[in-house]
């Protein structure tokens, strides 16, 4: 089903006799596999309002992400949260939609400075499991009118409602960017270096570490963005600050190279085309290297990429490996896994009993018939 309007989509849901698989561009085959009729939002495609002077954009859920980004770029603006393209990692085809990005709360390296997708999301329209068209939030920057269901819808993976329209806060593309690279650090030292940078007043917009970078050696990346004066000033300050960690410090000021480097981090290029399951582990930054060290005890050759200053750890492990066998405070999500792995291991981390009961209670209110991507989140 590819409805052309919000009301047609609402009719599709209201009239559904069984489970529905909600799809945007179909580029994110993540979660417990859902058997059901495909309901696509691709027919709802339109940037309906864009006010560059108010930093807001409103788009129908099926609008391709590339179209939203191109619209913003024409005015020198962008999405602050730097969403990743999952096609490379998951080997998918097609065009990611803005609704899909929101439903999965896809947030890239700039999350540490500009917030996650949910932080940029100002308002939503969606169709609940009964086929009711509902709205929450709006298109203004500050809004505490009633409960914030906007955050709830972000990252609900189509299990609470089918998004039909999203409004987002956007930001100006800064005139300059730079990347300070530190070569040769151990994971632990790299996280210390990133913490030092993130604890400095130099307004870091990206902090990542690859134990094995493009050339096979460890590289730590710190990004700064802003006016040319600021970038030059902060790059110099950070070069001094980061020298104490022992690695060779290099400043990259070629914008194209900086952008390419961060796209490499954002899209987890390191693990593209690889064999094995890919997990996304969310922890407090200092915990990242500990989790990896424990995983390496049994799997010495795993691929690893740290983002968010060490707080987001991407690992590629042999198929069927349960990274949660290692104990840590935080959570892990299986992003790339065979259908077999996804049916054996919980894709999303199990919640504590009281939390799970609340989540389940909410699902029953939003989708009493249990037809929207049932079971996708476990």
């Amino acid at each position, binding site marked *: 089903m590819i409805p052309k309007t919000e009301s047609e989509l609402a009719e599709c849901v209201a009239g559904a006799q069984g489970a529905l698989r909600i799809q945007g561009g179909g580029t994110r085959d993540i979660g417990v596999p859902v058997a059901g009729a495909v309901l696509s939002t691709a027919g709802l495609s339109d940037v309906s309002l864009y006010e560059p002077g108010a930093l807001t954009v409103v788009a129908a859920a099926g609008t391709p992400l590339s179209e939203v980004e191109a619209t913003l770029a024409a005015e020198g603006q962008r999405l602050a949260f730097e969403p990743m393209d999952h096609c490379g990692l998951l080997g998918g085809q097609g065009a990611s939609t803005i609704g899909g990005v929101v439903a999965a709360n896809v947030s890239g390296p700039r*999350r540490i400075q500009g917030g996650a997708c949910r932080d940029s999301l100002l308002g939503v329209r969606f169709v609940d499991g009964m086929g009711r068209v509902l709205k929450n939030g709006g298109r203004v920057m500050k*809004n505490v009118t*009633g409960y914030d269901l906007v955050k709830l819808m972000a990252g609900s993976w189509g299990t609470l409602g089918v998004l039909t329209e999203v409004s987002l806060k956007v930001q100006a593309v800064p005139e300059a960017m730079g990347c300070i690279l530190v070569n040769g650090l151990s994971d632990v030292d790299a996280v210390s270096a990133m913490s030092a940078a993130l604890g400095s007043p130099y307004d870091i917009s990206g902090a990542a570490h690859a134990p094995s970078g493009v050339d096979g050696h460890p590289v730590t990346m710190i990004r700064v963005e802003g006016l040319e004066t600021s970038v030059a000033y902060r790059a110099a300050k950070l070069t001094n600050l980061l020298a104490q960690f022992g690695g060779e410090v290099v400043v990259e000021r070629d914008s194209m190279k900086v952008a390419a480097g961060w796209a490499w981090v954002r899209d987890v290029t390191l693990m593209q085309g690889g064999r094995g399951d890919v997990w996304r582990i969310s922890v*407090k930054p200092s915990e990242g290297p500990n989790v990896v060290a424990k995983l390496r005890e049994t799997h010495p050759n795993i691929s690893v990429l740290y983002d968010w200053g060490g707080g987001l750890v991407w690992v590629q492990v042999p198929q069927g490996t349960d990274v949660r066998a290692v104990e840590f405070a*935080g*959570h892990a999500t299986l992003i790339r896994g065979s259908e077999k792995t996804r049916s054996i291991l919980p894709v999303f981390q199990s919640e504590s009993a009281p939390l799970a009961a609340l989540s389940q209670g909410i699902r029953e209110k939003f989708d009493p018939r249990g037809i929207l991507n049932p079971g996708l989140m476990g």
Partner: protein
Amino acid sequence: MDMPTPNPEVLAKKAHIVARLKAVLPADAVIYEEAETRAYECDALTAYRCPPLAVVLPASTEEVVAILKVCHAETVPVVPRGAGTSLAGGSMPTADSVILGVARMTEVLEADFANRFIRVQTGRTNLSVSGAVEEQDFFYAPDPSSQLACAIAGNIAMNSGGAHCLKYGVTTNNLLGVTMVTMEGEVVEIGGAHLDAGGLDLLGVICGSEGQLGVVTEATLRILPKPEGARPVLMGFDSNEVAGQCVSDIIKSGILPVAIEFMDRPCIRATEAFAGAGYPDCEALLIVEVEGSDEEIDAQLERILTIARTHNPVGLRESTSADESARIWLGRKSAFGAMGQINDYMCLDGTIPVSQLPLVLRRIGEMSKDYGLDVGNVFHAGDGNMHPLILFDANKPGDLEKCEAFGADILRLCVEVGGCLTGEHGVGIEKRDLMVDQYLPEDLDIQMAVKDVFDPKWLLNPAKVFPLTASETRRMAAE
């Protein structure tokens, strides 16, 4: 302002309820004599008052659990209270309710600078969270103007903002985790020191739920390194339209100021008479503040001033020292006090798309004439969060009602132009009955359904946020 009729059964068993609360709390943590409960009869929305049945002041999550179990068992409504600074009546009691005040829960539980978070008990004041980390050159970003007094518990309940949220976001963008006690007395841990939710983003729903879903006793907050410096620039314009256009041009230019504040002529005149900050006498005034090192600030201010000059400002004042910065902020910071000097006032906080600023200010001016009540506007222009201050005389019969009607018209206007009723103060009782102007019945129903999940008996702060008629069936089912 209507409030539900107190439940006579609860009133009748006051002694029994107090005895049960005293059995689980230290003697000085239960207040029930009428002379003493009167101190809790209202919050910062002082127009409405009602002493509660009793007040409890727990010191720990365990004590909160014990209190809520008693109240749940006895079907007693509970009104959570931070520091009582709500302008929306968010912690206003009813006669049959127990006020649960977190004022004694002020401990810092953990401060982690490498991982950039602090965990506190939620009775701690906003400013003292920053105070606990400032020696290490960190701060907690959300800065509501009541930050000296307001508690983190209330900040979370209302998703409080502040002048600097243009750059740093509001409470929800800086909240990483909570320990929350449900009305049934169950402790739930949500989030933590990591950055995102593993399942549904319940933390996002709890923040801003006005104490209706649970009592948040501990919070993990993101802390940020302090900028090297900050400096404002003051600019005056001879029309609101031009000032509004200037705001829009600054935002579009790619510079992200930490604050863009706006004052209109009535407010400028009142603050000049009161504080003498030396503001130009003009139609509209902007204060734009940027952060960074000295050279970074210079570079940003130069851009901003270039933009401002294209709009023919009637005054431009760039700060070159801490003293000059303080003088630029002086008028803005004393605006509420200055208006209060003239008369009683009601402060609104509707938010509008920035592009609608000139239209909305013009309409407010027209309405001011129709109602015969003066209004001054001072607000966060960068994000469209307005703060019209309507002056009235509380001792003059009918003036409060007139003021409320005027306020309601302004808020409806905000919604009409694509904005919302409240940007940072919350709905409380103040804007409860206007919710139907922003949301359709089914939009309110799905929100209330969330409360059904967290608090099936509708005992937590039940008469707030939703129009009483809309929530009546649910509240009645509880009794």
